[in-house]
């Protein structure tokens, strides 16, 4: 294994923290390059969930007995931990959802329905994942709401030439902090400020950002931030919505049921305080605790170190793949590693991405093929599908080398 050179991450040791990374696929050691879809989970996360089930499993917020109290406290400690991880000033600002998709839908359903009316406009970008498109289209279809799109340029950056005009009169700007297709990092602070100056509220889809970069909601300047646990070493089934407390206070509730109420009579109900107002029913207790453990794990390693590692590994990958494969590889997205994350969408000769990933799979190399839930962006790129390799803290130069070598097999197989 290549020792990690200049960024202080002991990747060999990190790999050993992730049980799955010791398995093989088709008799080759696994080379996992699909963390943009979901990350692998370190043993501490798995252990934290097992420990919950084995020692304090009880429903939260409702029991007076010891383990119910322990479970509730453990879950609320995870909430405080998440708040700290993203620089939220108030723990009550962290709402647990099922995933980033549900977080966006929550905002569209509650804030959106209370604040967006006929004739209003929502500004999105052409980089968005379907999770940050379809909920707004659903709302727009219900009311007479205009959707406007900030375009992307040829390198995959947002083209902000017309920003002022696009924001004029808009009520909401909703955009991704990092593209899950091109890796593009967007100017979150700049866009937030511009939107606020125009009187618009700002939602940031940070699903690909929080797992990879130090995050501070105050510095980002947005009003809503959504992300998903399973892409940041946490389990599936838990996501986060962060919003400023006064926004959450003013929003109507989302799902109705237990835990989100203070009082219910036959005549009606009063809602609970934030954040529980938005958390009807039994939450994903074990998963929330697991996400808390994931945050501990990432914090111990250090998000600055994670980011530095990914920048240098992305630079290595861009260089290695281009040098070895020359004209037959086209890597989409920004060419400058500092302005992007480690998501590499590429085309390889005229081999269809499905075939590329099939051949790579035979060598244990896991990459995604398809439209990556961003069809409008794919249409603009003029492709139906790409292959996508995405990097995380447990990847190293040898993983990139394996990818590069397996691409030679694909070239042989399809004679390009």
């Amino acid at each position, binding site marked *: 294994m290549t020792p990690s050179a200049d960024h202080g991450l002991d990747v060999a040791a990190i790999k050993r923290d992730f049980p799955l990374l010791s398995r093989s696929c*088709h008799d080759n050691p696994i080379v996992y390059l699909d963390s943009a879809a979901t990350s692998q989970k370190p043993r501490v996360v798995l252990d934290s969930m097992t420990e919950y089930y084995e020692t304090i499993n009880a429903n939260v917020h409702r029991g007076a007995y010891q383990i119910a109290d322990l479970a509730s406290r453990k879950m609320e400690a995870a909430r405080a931990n998440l708040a700290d991880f993203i620089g939220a000033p108030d723990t009550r600002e962290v709402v647990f959802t099922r995933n980033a998709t549900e977080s966006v839908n929550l905002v569209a359903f509650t804030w959106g329905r209370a604040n967006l009316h006929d004739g209003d406009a929502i500004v999105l970008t052409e980089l968005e994942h379907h999770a940050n498109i379809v909920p707004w289209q659903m709302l727009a279809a219900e009311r007479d709401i205009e959707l406007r799109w900030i375009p992307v340029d040829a390198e995959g950056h947002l083209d902000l030439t017309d920003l002022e005009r696009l924001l004029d009169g808009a009520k909401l700007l909703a955009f991704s902090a990092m593209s899950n297709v091109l890796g593009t990092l967007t100017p979150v602070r700049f866009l937030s400020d511009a939107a606020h100056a125009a009187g618009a509220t700002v939602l940031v889809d940070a699903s690909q950002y929080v797992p990879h970069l130090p995050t501070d909601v105050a510095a980002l300047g947005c009003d809503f931030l959504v992300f998903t646990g399973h892409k940041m070493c946490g389990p599936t089934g838990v996501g986060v919505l962060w919003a400023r407390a006064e926004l959450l206070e003013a929003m109507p509730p989302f799902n109705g049921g237990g835990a989100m109420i203070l009082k219910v009579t036959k005549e009606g109900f009063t809602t609970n305080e934030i954040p529980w107002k938005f958390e009807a029913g039994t939450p994903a207790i074990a998963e929330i605790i697991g996400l808390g453990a994931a945050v501990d794990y990432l914090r111990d390693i250090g998000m600055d170190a994670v980011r530095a590692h990914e920048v240098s590994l992305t630079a290595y990958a861009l260089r290695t793949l281009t040098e070895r494969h020359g004209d037959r590889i086209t890597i989409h997205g920004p060419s400058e590693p500092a302005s992007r994350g480690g998501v590499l969408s590429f085309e390889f000769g005229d*081999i*269809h*991405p*499905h*075939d590329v990933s*099939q*051949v790579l799979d*035979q060598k244990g190399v896991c990459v995604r*093929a*398809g*439209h990556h839930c961003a*069809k409008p962006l*794919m249409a603009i790129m003029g492709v*139906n*599908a790409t292959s996508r390799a995405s990097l995380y803290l447990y990847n190293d130069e040898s993983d990139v080398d394996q990818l590069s070598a397996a691409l030679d*097999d694909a070239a*042989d*197989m*399809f004679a390009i």
Partner: protein
Amino acid sequence: MPGLEDLYREIILDHYRNPRNRGELETPPAHRAEGFNPLCGDEVVVYVDVDDDGVIQDIRIGGQGCSISQSSASMMSAAVKGKTVEEARALTRAFKAMMSIHENELGGDPDEPVEIPEGVTLGDLEALRGVVKFPVRIKCATLSWNTLSSGLDAVSV
């Protein structure tokens, strides 16, 4: 490449590289049907021209996709051209039966024979048999056949 020789047979790659009956037909008289694989974004367009005697006089394939979906479409076009609608439907059933071997292995009785309708020979299409070992790709192989079926349904009404 070891492990993939069952999938990427030479004849499959040949049809992928040199697709038969690519193009369009004028509609009408031909019928046009579209099929999509939402998973990977593959799309196939099938044009069929059926005469008054129910014979497929001509067929053309458009769209784009992976080697399996494209070669399957190409082989299909060669196999059904000149056949009657009924024969094409029988061939479709036979092909789908071949593709469902895997489901039998997973769910039902593994020894249960795959039912290929009597009197139907798959010919070159047998080369796609290896796809069943790669369940994810079965949808690629059947895309053009499903599209042909909906095209023929439109002809029959």
